[in-house]
């Protein structure tokens, strides 16, 4: 009998690898590992033999060679004699620029539309939901192409500004909105302008200090200090004073029509504007839905409770509804930002030189280094996405309801 009541012998048997749940997971993992390694080895050996057969190799040396092509929009110094690497950096910066502007604009439009979709006004509600549905349900590539086409077709071209009775004229003599892009006056910083800027920055810091003080006064002593007008004053007056004291060191350079194009001033290219706008209104349609869902997710009892405490409507919105709605809105908002950034890789359809246009476009064409270029391209987007995801996780943890 004792043999039966004995605990099972600890000796390991091969069948336990399959039948014993304690060991089975190791078997599975081992098999998965082997399969994975085999797959990679298989692909790798194919790659090596293919490259050998074609007489090619994998090398990133081409990044150090002169690119040979020009890029219209460059945030850092670049000319056709710079290297492919530098061209890629220019492209990456352009990607980041359009992503940043697009996200900013998409947020603004999305929030406005999301709020308006809950408006009392029937017409506005309908118009906004038509906008949301149309933009959400058609591919973004089609929108990019359409908006670029509208942009180019509708706005006047520099040639229309020419001549005595020109068809178009500059707004206030300093802004030109053309199918090639927008031209703005550019500030020129003379000597002494550093002081003005320093004063301006200091006054912005001052506004924050003042607001903090006002809030403290409210919470500690119940004293209401008006903040709006002092802030506005603080924003403008010191900087303007400093500007005149220093003898007007900052002047404006106005764009003017010379030769083929407007010269001088700041030039925002049509491709940048059209792409930003297309990505923004496409993404804004999604953001609007998130915002609407976020506001609706705050239960009506919250509004009523706040009202019964005697809060005024705008304070209810600021202090009660928005903080709660934001917790629902922010995570999908971040993923929309990521989508926008990834969609910006369609830039080449309108001739915007982002990373896909430089590294994944002309550089790839000219050097024929497909594997290397695509690899770098993916690496860039991956790094960017992972960084944003990491930031988002930190944020999510910080706003998470502390439940017990």
């Amino acid at each position, binding site marked *: 009998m004792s043999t039966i009541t004995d605990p099972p012998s600890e000796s390991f048997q091969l069948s336990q690898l399959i039948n014993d749940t304690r060991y089975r997971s190791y078997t599975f993992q081992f098999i998965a590992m082997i399969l994975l390694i085999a797959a990679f080895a298989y692909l790798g050996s194919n790659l090596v033999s*293919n490259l050998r*057969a*074609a*007489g*090619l190799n994998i090398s990133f040396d081409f990044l150090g060679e002169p690119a*040979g*092509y*020009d*890029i*219209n929009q460059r945030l850092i110094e670049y*000319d*056709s*004699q710079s290297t492919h690497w530098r061209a890629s950096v220019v492209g990456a910066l352009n990607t980041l620029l359009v992503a940043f502007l697009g996200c900013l604009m998409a947020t603004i439009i999305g929030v406005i539309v999301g709020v308006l979709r809950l408006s009392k006004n029937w017409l506005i509600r309908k118009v906004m939901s038509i906008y949301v549905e149309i933009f959400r349900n058609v591919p973004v590539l089609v929108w990019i*192409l359409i908006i670029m*086409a509208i942009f*180019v*077709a509708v706005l006047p*071209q*520099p*040639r*229309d500004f020419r001549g005595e009775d020109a068809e178009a004229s500059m707004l206030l003599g300093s802004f030109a909105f053309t*199918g*090639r892009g927008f031209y703005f006056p550019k500030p020129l910083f003379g000597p002494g302008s550093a002081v003005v800027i320093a004063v301006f920055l200091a006054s912005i810091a001052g506004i924050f200090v003042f607001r903090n003080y006002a809030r403290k006064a409210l919470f500690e002593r119940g004293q209401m200090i008006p903040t709006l007008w002092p802030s506005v004053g603080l924003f403008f007056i010191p900087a303007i004073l400093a500007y005149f004291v220093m003898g007007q060191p900052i002047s404006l350079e106005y764009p003017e029509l*010379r*030769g*083929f*194009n407007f*010269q001088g001033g700041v030039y925002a290219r*049509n*491709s940048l504007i059209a792409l930003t706008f297309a990505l923004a209104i496409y993404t804004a349609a999604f953001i609007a839905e998130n915002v609407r869902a976020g506001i609706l997710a705050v239960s009506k009892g919250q509004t009523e409770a706040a009202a019964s405490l005697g809060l005024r409507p705008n304070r209810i919105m600021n202090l009660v509804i928005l903080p709660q709605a934001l917790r629902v809105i922010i995570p999908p908002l971040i993923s929309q930002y990521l989508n926008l950034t990834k969609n910006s890789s369609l830039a*080449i*359809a309108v*001739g915007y*030189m982002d990373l896909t*246009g430089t590294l994944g*476009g*002309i550089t*790839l*064409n*000219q050097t*024929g280094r*497909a594997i290397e270029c695509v690899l770098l391209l993916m690496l860039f987007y991956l790094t960017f996405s992972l960084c944003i995801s990491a930031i988002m996780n930190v944020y999510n943890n910080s706003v998470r309801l502390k439940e017990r």
Partner: protein
Amino acid sequence: MKRSLVIGATFVAGLSSAAAAATIDDIKARGKLNCGVTTGLVGFAAPDANGEWDGFDVGVCRAVAAAVLGDETAVEFVPTTGKTRFTSLASGEIDMLARNTTWTFSRDVDLKFEFVGINYYDGQGFMVPKELGVSSAKELDGATICIQTGTTTELNLADFFRNNNISYEPVPIETNAEAQPLYLEGACDVYTTDASGLAATRAAFENPGDHVVLPEIISKEPLGPLVRHGDNEWADVVRWTLNALIAAEEYGVTSANIEELSGGSDNPEINRLLGSEGNLGEQLGLDADWAKRAIMVGGNYGELFEKNIGENTPIGLSRGLNAQWTDGGLLYAPPFR
């Protein structure tokens, strides 16, 4: 699709793995020539309303197919973009690339391709609206220029403006179709691409007369078919098929009189070309009629040119550099002997 899956599965099982055979044997086994072309450039390679590929480059593909397989329709046209063409060729997805590709040193040497000849001598030009009053490319300082990317165009342009020390604003556009509205609406002052492309584009405008092509040609663009490095037999077949088309024009062999001439003529060169004398076809690994079939598809080089891009077509290109050497052009087929 699923069938390919099944085939893929058998591959993985290691049941059969075809050793890299010679390209020409692959083509014969397959019964089809895979020929890389553009995604659509009228006159050179574009599908027509019925979905048939048509054009000058297409004519070369069909001639090769006729020479190798005896069937001009046994061609699978694989549309490629500027980005994908070299990979498609290098990976063996296509057997030859006839996609007005410029013969350059690095493509030949570094990318390991073999340009088998030149079927069109092109050069990069500029088109501007007449109303701008520009008569030379050197007056284009500060102009906004639409470029069709994916070719050598960007590099030529950068070099030209750097050499002349003038500035410009490049607007890279992927396809001709998208560059056109930009240029017509005035978002670009100038449109630049190969002169042949400019002519084709201009011909499609509502008012072609309002636009001029500037006299400067800023680059040499010898366009020709290419194959992979390392398979010289196949390269020879494509090279001599192209040469046969060119030589046929020089000797006056046309699709109209080829039947008659192939019976034998006074000119031994023609006889060797058409296979009634010598064994040139056999040396290539083909039969004696190979060149005859190639020429019969669309006629000789001159006939192909006239039919697809010549002066009577909407594209309206004159022969220019692409005339026979006897007419002051650059076409010069090596002797068939």
